[in-house]
């Protein structure tokens, strides 16, 4: 009997290890031979810990499980109170287009044979047999844009590095994932690390880079452990190393760990950190593509950008480009979080509306109260009111509405949310996390907190100052930390002005 229990950090945070232990002991007690396989997460976090049993018809799911629910799995699984039927038929999964996350939650993340058996390595095999220029062309033709926030076309970035002449070039994977509401990078690294490694190796072949780094935030100990182990295995098996799949291409990979600084997700700050310096932002130009790590040509890409690459190489640029809308092509792994009934990861083509995401897929709020605001794209993203629910999820529409999609994390807030507090939090976060290099961000954010405190105290004259301050931060900051903090602040103010009015004394 084959039983699957996730080893993903969110599943573990909800008790998956205890459930796995209960599976082992209940099976022993009943004398049933069980093969327990720990997988990544399917992404239905509200159902974690999700247990699956293999049947002739396919895998069947049970969740959310507690250790006490386990023994009954061995009696009459069909009538188990937590039975959910065939996993693949659960609407939340069935409605997705899972390309990047196809294997996540399905296989043992460190089983390279299972990785290959489920389609892994096909992209890399094609890449080693293709001219670098043509690999770059393929990625460019797919329409893939950076998933880390800025949405820069990945093919163009790679082409710049390919044509740069230097004795050593680098691929740096940005796994700093500091945005609240985001966890796709974590899930992928924990649940299917070889996909990321394959994407990085392809990037190396395409650009002539022979050394790669994955910079993972220290808040992700599980992802760090899995990536280190996967790197060891991939090197041992010749997937990477001195000769990638027996070819003339070499690609060495090293896992590095951040040290608790949000700004180190910004690419130039990340490069400084990787070099062992304070994580301060560098002025651009020069672009990292030309003068990146140690001043040498460097591709800096988000986890999801790189993890999309193997599928594109295996299935062709056109197949990827066929999905999506406008200039937002392919799939986007949405992360639905906060006060929401069905929170988790939902990979789908661009173009789905915000309302569908929050209401149909997310099921509305967990509290059952009406939705008040949805922050899209992390701490630098705008607070969208329900009247924005017709917006299609893509780079252009959100930019047009004074927002951004960022890393595609969505945080739902119900009626209880106090938008003035959330605006103040955005300023405070910026003040704490500012690298300190530019004044509008370092000082502006501190003034922002003080000014919002005046608003709270009933000083209506402080409101125009907020607008001015945001303008200065937008125009004068060196990077998007100071530059985009005005998004959450001003969207809160514009969309929910009543929360910024002087508090009415309770009429007695």
């Amino acid at each position, binding site marked *: 009997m084959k039983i699957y229990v996730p080893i993903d*950090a*969110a599943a573990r945070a909800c008790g998956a290890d205890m459930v796995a232990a209960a599976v082992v002991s209940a099976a022993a007690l009943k004398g049933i031979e069980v093969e327990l396989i720990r997988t990544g997460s399917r992404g239905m976090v509200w159902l974690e810990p999700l247990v699956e049993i293999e049947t002739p018809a396919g895998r069947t799911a049970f969740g959310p499980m507690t250790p006490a629910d386990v023994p009954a799995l061995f009696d009459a699984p069909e009538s188990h109170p937590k039975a959910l039927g065939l996993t693949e038929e659960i609407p939340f999964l069935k409605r997705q287009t899972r390309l990047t996350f196809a294997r996540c939650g399905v296989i043992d993340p460190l089983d390279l044979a299972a990785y290959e058996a489920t389609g892994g390595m096909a992209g890399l095999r094609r890449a080693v047999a293709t001219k670098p220029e043509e690999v770059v062309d393929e990625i460019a033709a797919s329409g893939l844009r950076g998933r880390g926030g800025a949405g820069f076309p990945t093919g163009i970035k790679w082409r710049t590095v390919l044509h740069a002449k230097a004795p050593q070039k680098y691929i740096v994977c940005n796994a700093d994932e500091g945005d609240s509401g985001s966890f796709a990078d974590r899930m992928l690294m924990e649940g299917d690390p070889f996909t990321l490694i394959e994407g990085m190796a392809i990037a190396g072949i395409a650009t002539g880079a022979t050394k790669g780094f994955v910079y993972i935030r220290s*808040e992700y100990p599980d992802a760090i452990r899995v990536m280190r182990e996967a790197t060891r295995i991939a090197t041992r098996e010749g997937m990477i190393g001195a000769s990638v799949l027996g070819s003339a291409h070499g690609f060495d990979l090293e896992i590095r760990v*951040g040290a608790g600084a949000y700004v180190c997700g910004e690419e130039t700050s990340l490069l400084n950190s990787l070099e062992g*310096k304070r994580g301060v932002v560098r002025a651009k130009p020069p672009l990292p593509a030309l003068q990146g790590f140690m001043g040498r040509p460097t591709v800096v890409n988000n986890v999801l950008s790189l993890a999309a690459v193997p599928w594109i190489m295996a299935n062709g640029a056109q197949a990827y480009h066929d999905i999506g809308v406008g200039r937002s092509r392919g799939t986007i792994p949405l992360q639905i*979080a906060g006060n929401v009934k069905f929170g988790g990861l939902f990979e789908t083509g661009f173009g789905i509306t915000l309302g569908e995401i929050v209401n149909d897929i997310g099921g509305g709020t967990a509290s059952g109260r009406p939705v008040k605001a949805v922050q899209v794209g992390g*701490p630098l993203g705008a607070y969208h009111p329900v009247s924005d629910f017709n917006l299609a999820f893509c780079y252009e529409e959100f930019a047009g509405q004074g927002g951004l999609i960022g890393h595609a*994390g969505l945080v739902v*807030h119900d009626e209880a949310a106090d938008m003035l507090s959330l605006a103040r939090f955005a300023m405070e976060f910026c003040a704490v996390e500012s690298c300190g290099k530019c004044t509008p961000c370092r000082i502006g954010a501190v003034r922002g907190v003080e000014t919002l405190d005046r608003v709270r105290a009933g000083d209506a004259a402080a409101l125009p100052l907020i607008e001015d301050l945001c303008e200065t931060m937008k125009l004068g900051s060196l990077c998007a930390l100071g530059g985009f903090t005005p998004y959450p602040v001003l969207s809160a103010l514009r969309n929910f002005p009543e929360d910024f009015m002087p508090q009415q004394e309770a009429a007695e």
Partner: protein
Amino acid sequence: MSVAAVTAPPAPPAHLAETVAAVLAAHAGREGALLPILHDLQAEFGYVPGESYDAIAAALRLSRAEVAGVVGFYHDFRAAPAARHVIKLCRAEACQAMGGAATQARLERALGMKLGETQGNVTLEAVYCLGLCACAPAAMVGDRLVGRLDDSAIEAIAEEVRA
């Protein structure tokens, strides 16, 4: 109450020089080795001892001030050891949306201390997102992650660190 006691520079740990030398040797030749070195030292001692700065600076051809500047920049690196139990409560947006402020108040009450304090065996600090935003509110107790932090989970944490 013992906040001051922990922030005062601790006495240098035993075998400091040998341990620092071993860590430096393990990273010799690595590009940009400073953060990996600091992480290893903190794993070894529970903090980055100021007494190690000169040796690090010499090995990496930096000034002592540069090493201190890097240690000071990052939230993770400690100048003094944390308590035996470190509880990190997420205070970022998704956890706020799930009643994070009330969770903080309940946790503070259960532990009898405020966020940002160290008392006896326990350090309670804020963290900004643990990637558990779909099972918020979330916390980290030692290296164990806890999601869906409700009253019984808070009670269990308080119990655990009292033991």
